[in-house]
């Protein structure tokens, strides 16, 4: 239950996005999270890049400069095996958190 804070959930969202979509740039990640959550979640764009950078330093993701379909240069991120593992454990601990919160809400 150590890292079930907001930052933890942002990491989870980014990792999950990358595991589903393969390769994406930062803007693409923002759009995907918004779309996939039916506009319920919107990532604060100012927090995304520090998070991406930290995750890259931890070896969970790798990055590469590439050209988009609209001929723009963008940095594409992709999951590493270490990131894959991290995603699994993050999913597990998120399930725990949700279970815990639900249990408290049901209590009474």
């Amino acid at each position, binding site marked *: 239950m150590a890292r079930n804070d907001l930052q933890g959930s942002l990491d989870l969202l980014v990792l999950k996005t990358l595991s589903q979509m393969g390769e994406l*740039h*930062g*803007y693409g990640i*923002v759009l995907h999270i918004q779309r996939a959550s039916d506009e319920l979640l919107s990532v*604060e*764009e*100012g927090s995304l*890049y*520090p*998070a991406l*950078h*930290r995750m890259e*330093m*931890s*070896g969970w993701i790798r990055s590469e400069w590439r050209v*988009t379909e*609209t001929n*723009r*240069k*963008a*940095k594409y991120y992709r999951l590493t095996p270490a990131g894959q593992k991290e995603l699994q454990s993050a999913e597990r601990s998120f399930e725990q958190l949700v279970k815990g919160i639900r249990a408290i809400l049901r209590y009474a």
Partner: protein
Amino acid sequence: MSVFRRIANTFSRSKLHQEIDAEIQSHVEMRIADNMAAGMSPEQARRDALLRFGNRVVMRERTTAADAATALDGFGRDLRYATRQLRRSSAFTATALITLVLGIGANVVVFSVLNAMLLHPLNVPQPGNLYHVVHKQQGYDNQSYPDYKDFQTKNSTFSDMAAYRVEFAGLSTRDAAYKCWYYRVSGNFFDVLGAQPAEGRFFHASDEHGPNSAPYIVLSNGFWRTHFDADSHIIGATVDVNKHPFTVIGVAPPAFHGTEVFIWPDFWMPIVNSPSGDTAEYLSNRFSHNLMVLGRLKPGVTPLQATGNLNAISQELAGQNRADDGLDARLTKPGWMGDQFGAPARSFLAGIMVLAFLVLLAACANLASLFAARTADRSRELAIRLAIGSSRWNVLRQLLSEAILLSVLGGALATLFSTILLDALTRWQPFPEFPIHVTVSPDPRVYFVALLLSIGSGMVWGLVPIRQIWATDSVQVMKTGGAGTFVFHRFTLRDLLLGVQIALCTLLVTASLVALRGMQRSLHAPLGFQPPGVLLADTDLHMGGYPDASTTQIQKRMIEEVARIPGVSSVGIIDETPLGAGGSSTYVYRMGTTDFRASTSAFDAKYYSISPGYLNAAATRLLTGRDFTWHDDAKGPKVAIVNETFAQRMFGKASPIGQSFLLGQGALYEVVGVVENGKYESLTEAPWAAVFFPLAQSSESDTSLMVRSPLPPDQVVPELRRVLAQIDPSLPFVFHTWLGALAFVQFPARIATATLGVMGLLAAMLAVTGVFGMAMYSVSKRKREFGIRVAVGAQPRQLIGSALKRSVILLLSGSIIGLLLGVVASQLLAQIVYEATPRDPLVLGGVLITMALLGLVATWIPAQRALRIHPARLLREE
């Protein structure tokens, strides 16, 4: 991987900034494009995109901060923190550094010598497949020229074989004359070694066409520079070697100095020629064994296969030639005159390497206990760090990086110092009359070993506090203030390490004292002659151009003239002084022997040619019979004087006078006198049988004139020089005292004593710091306890007793174990040092006094400190 990225990132912060800016820029542009596609105006689209991002500068800072936070987790912080810690406790750092420099320095020096002497001794291409061909029996390393030729032509395992011997001659040009050491070598010598000339050319096998066919010499680079000013016009010039003309055809490259590690000769000469001009006999005589044979193995052939091949040839030769009876072959590494010096030198160096390693181990033990004490002192700090969430691994890594930082620093300093020391060793020339240089220069291998030793030793002593850290209960430590948690009545690993160190120190002190006493005793050993008061004048009559037939006349005249010098009590001549650099032995046979082979001989005896009066001049006691006279010459019957061992082995209890024995070619000799036993090759040898022949019956040109006089040498030498110059002004003489000449046989013992002494000193310093550290630590940890004891009336004696009990117990038990080990080690020493025995009251007393002094030095200050504890002040401080 990311560690390096992080370090790179901290250095290229601005590049990181640019990248983040670019990434955000592309994000914003994509948002603007989408916004416009959704129907916003360009300004609206831009504003919205930027708003979503918030403050871009803050964002960028947050991104780099995420990076820096992880970056600082790595070494950088550890290293910086370690440096700060070490600078803060400068006493600890200094002690640790000195200890390390001593330990690592000793190892680097010894390893450099080992590396230079043994691991790649020969400065020629592919030295790995070069081997000496020697006999199976230890100490019999020489071959005869015909045997060399047979080995060379009949073998199938060597690509080629060369032969050489080291000799001594006078070289003269029109302007000057020099005494030189040189090699006589087979024509293919340079080609087998793969050497290329620096100037002119080398001679080759194709230059040899029988005796005296190649009157050429090749100069060594050093000789060419110092004696001919590096003048290339010397190529093609003629010089005289012992008054015989030779043409200088080339100069060797600077690093090439033949095939012996220590010897730097002045020139090389083809073996088919000789400075005396008569080589035919020598080249065909299978009986004179005085060549070193060096072979280069064919690629893919193992030494074992080659040995088998050579032994098969040996058997074939033994069947064909009487002289080759019992011939066999063995391969040995070149560079040390075969095995004669190689085997003892190798085992000696290996032994010293082990000692040096033990010193390093002692240093590590010392540092480990120092470090453990320091960790204990810092237990409170460590406990706080653990309590606020630092992981044990982090704390450990921190301590380990301190240890390794110190070790690498110590290793660097040690390498620096040892380089200076080795440089001095390289310039050292132990014997002025021999061309001996000890060239040791550290190479990459040495630096690699130094680095390895530093890091290795850092790990060893850095890992000792692991248990301490793992066992730290932070709450407990913080509550009690750290001091109370360390138990002092139990013996710990620290004590064991210290005990080992003291034992080691005692061992080294014992060994060096044993060696020192042996050296001292060897000066008064019964040598069979008395060197003090004797001057030697060495010369070779061949250098004066005298043929063998006339040498006796000249020698007789020299003795007669010199005997007339006032103050000279006796004069004689011998061909090789006993315990000098040379000496030969021959098989002797009992009467009635008709088949002369090694297996039918009575034994092997040292032989010398002496003049009448030599025994007197050397002060060798004649036990029975008579000395030679000048009438024992070629016209008279062949006579000999033998030593006690010879007489006893040849004739048993019977009186030897008047009895006879035979030599190799069946020559009969009658014994006319018996002299006392002596030392002939080394001080530690077992008694040799020796036989002396009259100079007039076995002429020798290369001799030492032995002059005994009660006057100091500098009063006799000028007169001696004048008298000898009157006989022949062109004859070169070398004057020296016999005691000085003995330096050569004492060299191994001296080196051993010096090395052991230095190692012993190192170990003693380490032991003192070790005991001192422990005693000091125990006193400072128990200050409170002592204060209370003083307050309740403890006497100084009791205080010191309990403060130093442990150190004293360790000192005593360590010393006893070390002394016992020393007794065992002395048996090894006996091979190099004369009469090495620890059963000598002076040695035992010396060791005990040394250890007691060390103990006193190490515990004096801690004891004073324990006594000065003032309970009132202590309580106030608390």
